[in-house]
């Protein structure tokens, strides 16, 4: 009698109303779809490079887009350095960044991870994003780490940015009401000290294991004494504890090895503060150190993930002003910006060399992620790496057929060249978010989002 009454109540509670269905959605949210292809997405890395790419080279050929079919394709000249990681790479072409509305390049970087137009400030000027950036939303979904997210930048705040936070140089926006712009960390020495300089004030991991063993034991003894719903909750709790035990033993593995802090004293992370609007003031010594500082930044980024300091990281190779020189590519006379502009005499050959260099850095990043062995899989296997820029075509600032790259695991099926025909970049961001178990059906400005970009996983 009693049991019948209770089950009737349970039925009533769940039936007949759309609103009442919600708790089940909440539950299902916990159950992330398992991919046959490997571990779930647990880390996100975003990489920004300035100035788009070269779709139309001087010789009339496309320097970015691969040739061939989806699974059998030849990398383009710019993407050639990525050959060692081609199997982990997705080159999605034909994606348009329609949400980038505002000032030409500012709107591009603002939209890149947010999928929203530049907001208007109260004085009428163009401001920052109208929504949170993907990295920040993902950070909110993942287990807490020392740093919720890690934003890094090399040679940041050039030209009109004058080394401070402006809409020209911000990639990440907080998931708060104000979508607060989050400036990146720029000083390699301070970053190293923050990440690796202090020994974590916690006991050896075997104590954590004893603690978690105890907790698991309590959960197992309590669960059978409870009703079925509570029992289920404690079983879920137990499986989270087991996951945590695995993560802790992973983090203590030999793979967490802080990179050597090399001497970067000639590099001035605050060179942007001394810059001028046009880029006439140059700091060629700092510029010459970009390759070695960039490599250190990449190494620190990878180890920050490997050591579980954070699960979400971004790297900006400069800002949208891009007023620096590239002496190591024998391009020391003029700042990068110059090559992009039609009024400065757009120079596609130089842009191609620059793009190819950034591709080689990206290839290094992906290989380093793949080299971290987490036991059952590599760090890359549980990471989604997104590469992008604020425009597609340098001289016109057009934002159609954007130069995006995806790499990693977490459900992505790599080794493919996928031709989308005018898909919205919001759909790409949404598809990535869905890989992290967030079930929402729209990301960024909803009118630009039609649903998750298909065929990635």
């Amino acid at each position: 009698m009693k049991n019948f009454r209770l089950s009737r109540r349970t039925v009533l509670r769940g039936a007949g109303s759309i609103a009442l269905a919600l708790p089940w959605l909440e539950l299902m949210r916990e159950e992330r779809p398992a991919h046959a292809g490997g571990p779930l997405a647990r880390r996100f890395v975003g990489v920004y490079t300035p100035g788009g790419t070269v779709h139309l080279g001087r010789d009339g050929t496309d320097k970015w887009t691969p040739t061939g079919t989806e699974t059998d394709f030849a990398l383009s000249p710019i993407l050639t350095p990525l050959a060692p990681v081609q199997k982990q790479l997705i080159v999605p072409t034909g994606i348009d960044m329609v949400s980038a509305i505002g000032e030409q390049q500012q709107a591009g970087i603002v939209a890149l991870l947010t999928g929203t137009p530049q907001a208007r400030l109260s004085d009428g000027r163009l401001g920052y994003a109208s929504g949170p950036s993907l990295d920040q939303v993902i950070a909110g979904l993942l287990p807490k780490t020392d740093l919720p997210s890690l934003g890094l930048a090399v040679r940041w705040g050039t030209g009109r940015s004058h080394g401070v936070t402006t809409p020209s140089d911000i990639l990440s926006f907080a998931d708060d009401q104000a979508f607060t712009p989050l400036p990146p960390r720029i000083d390699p020495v301070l970053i190293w000290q923050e990440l690796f300089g202090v020994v974590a004030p916690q006991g050896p991991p075997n104590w954590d294991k004893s603690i978690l063993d105890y907790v698991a034991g309590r959960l197992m003894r309590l669960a059978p004494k409870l009703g079925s719903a509570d029992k289920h909750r404690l079983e879920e709790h137990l499986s989270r504890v087991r996951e945590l035990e695995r993560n802790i033993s992973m983090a203590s593995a030999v793979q967490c090895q802080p990179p050597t802090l090399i001497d970067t004293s000639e590099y001035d992370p605050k060179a942007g503060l001394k810059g001028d609007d046009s880029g006439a003031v140059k700091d060629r010594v700092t510029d010459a150190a970009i390759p070695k500082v960039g490599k250190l930044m990449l190494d620190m980024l990878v180890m920050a993930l490997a050591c579980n300091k954070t699960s979400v990281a971004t790297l900006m190779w400069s800002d949208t002003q891009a007023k620096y020189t590239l002496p190591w590519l024998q391009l020391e006379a003029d700042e990068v910006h110059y090559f992009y502009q039609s009024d400065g005499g757009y120079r596609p050959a130089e842009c191609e060399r620059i793009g190819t260099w950034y591709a080689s850095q990206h290839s290094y990043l992906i290989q380093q992620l793949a080299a971290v062995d987490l036991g059952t899989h590599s760090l890359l296997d549980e990471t989604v790496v997104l590469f992008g820029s604020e425009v597609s075509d340098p001289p016109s600032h057009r934002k159609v057929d954007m130069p995006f790259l995806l790499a990693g695991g977490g459900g992505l099926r790599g080794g493919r060249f996928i031709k989308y025909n005018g898909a919205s970049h919001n759909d790409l961001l949404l598809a990535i978010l869905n890989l992290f178990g967030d079930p929402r059906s729209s990301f960024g400005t909803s009118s630009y989002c039609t649903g998750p970009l298909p065929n990635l996983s």
Partner: protein
Amino acid sequence: MLVALVAGSACGGRSLDPHAGEKGGAGDDGGSSFAGVPNSGGSGTDPGGAPSGDAGTPSCAPPASPLRRLSRFEYNNTVRELLGDSTEPGNALPVEKTTSYFDFDNDVASQSPTAEGVATYLSIAKGVAQRATSSGTFASWLPCAADVTAATASTCARRFVESFAPLAFRRALDSEEVSELTDLHASITNSGGSFADATAGVIAAVLSAPEFLYRVELGIRDPAGAPTMRPSGEEMAARISYLFWGAPPDAVLRKAVASGELLTASGVLAQAKRLLADKRSHAVVATFFEQLLVLGQLNGLRRSDSVYTPALGQTLRAATQRYFEYEIFEKGASWPSIWTAPEAFANAQLAPLYYGISNLTGDSLQKVMLDPEQRLGFLTDPGVLIGVNPNDQANPDQRGALVLNRLLCAGIPSHSGPEVAFNPTGVTARDRWLSVSSSSACTNCHSEMDGVGLALERYDSIGRYRTHEDGQAIDTRSELPSLGVVDGAAELARALSTDPRTQTCFVQRWLEFSSGRQLSAGIDDECLTRNVNAAFVASGYDVQELLLALTQTDAFLFFSKE
């Protein structure tokens, strides 16, 4: 008064209190029904409290007792009481979610453990443990740790476990449970840890255990009702203390456990009165209103009007909270009179902006009298008016939905119809929203929602009083399906203050908040609501009496085994 109130609310009559069966005069059920569901009357029992168990037709069965997880607020209070840790480490936990059907953040149905949550439990427990065992504090609460040696270590560890763990689990431990923890302590010292490390490890383990994180109620058989359980004395002590203080039982409650007085309704009531009279209860009541009126949204709210700053939002939030504290605990006000009280709280910043008072000085909040032409009660409180509009406008439908859904329990669904654009060329909100409320697909919900909101249109997006919008006079006259014609906020507040829906809904909201579960549309919860409402009516809608009545229901004194 209270005796009658208590008897009137004891629904199944299975009270263990020998006095509770004496029927009081509070049998009036207030003439209202639960959440739009008609009184079923099917059970045929007297809601006034005749012992129905004897009649063989149980009518007002208590609900089950699902595990309730400590909220962040409760976690903070609990580690402060246990170990003097006032760093509020629980704030690092994932923010509790509210849902479209439950206004409070403690809904057990949405508390499934997440990876982030469980990882954070461990990390904050370790933080608490480290602070408690740091060299400055350790010996102050565990004197035997001061000069501990290899010879005294195990005695000292046992002493620590035996005093700490029962407080953390809110119950006595059996000897096996004690050994488990002393073994853990020993295993850490055996692997090179110091006595302090090992103690920290045990603290972290206890604070991560389900018995600490959840309020476990296994219950004891109720001899009077075979399928019914009642919370043990220890479990009841936790029920009372988390209800009124959001904190673990204090020494007096623990003594009451030992004396067995928490096994009677009158014993429970005596403790409830004591806790309610203590200032610690104010924070719980503040949490209720904070969530009911979505005041939390004032945090980080943005307005294009530069007068509005985050700091102003914080002050408004504090002023709204101070209002309810004053009305309930200092004036001892009834719920209808809180709707129409002639005062508010302001400081030197708020007074000129909202209340036309220019001679108030200082940052601290002081009572100010309202201009009755402009404001009345909490419905015109700027914090309430602003918090409900997360976007940059004074949207009448959102203000209307706050009143109808949260304060009247009207159950208007979250947006379900087509998107109909409001008319952007309208000068006043009434013109802009006419296209919505008159559209056939929308009128069902929007005519009443917008009607209520338009009566509140004399308050702009930051809650200032105004008579005109862009030069055009604001018409605040609304004809509402359920209330007839009201003109402006004061008339609306007066009409709602005496509306029976207002009182029943307040009861329902307190039942939800206090039990952390959605009331079901079945006869048992209907019965529960009806009886607490009857007590509320009988008390003259006294808010404090309502909170005490929550502890005298079968749902509080008993639970059913799943």
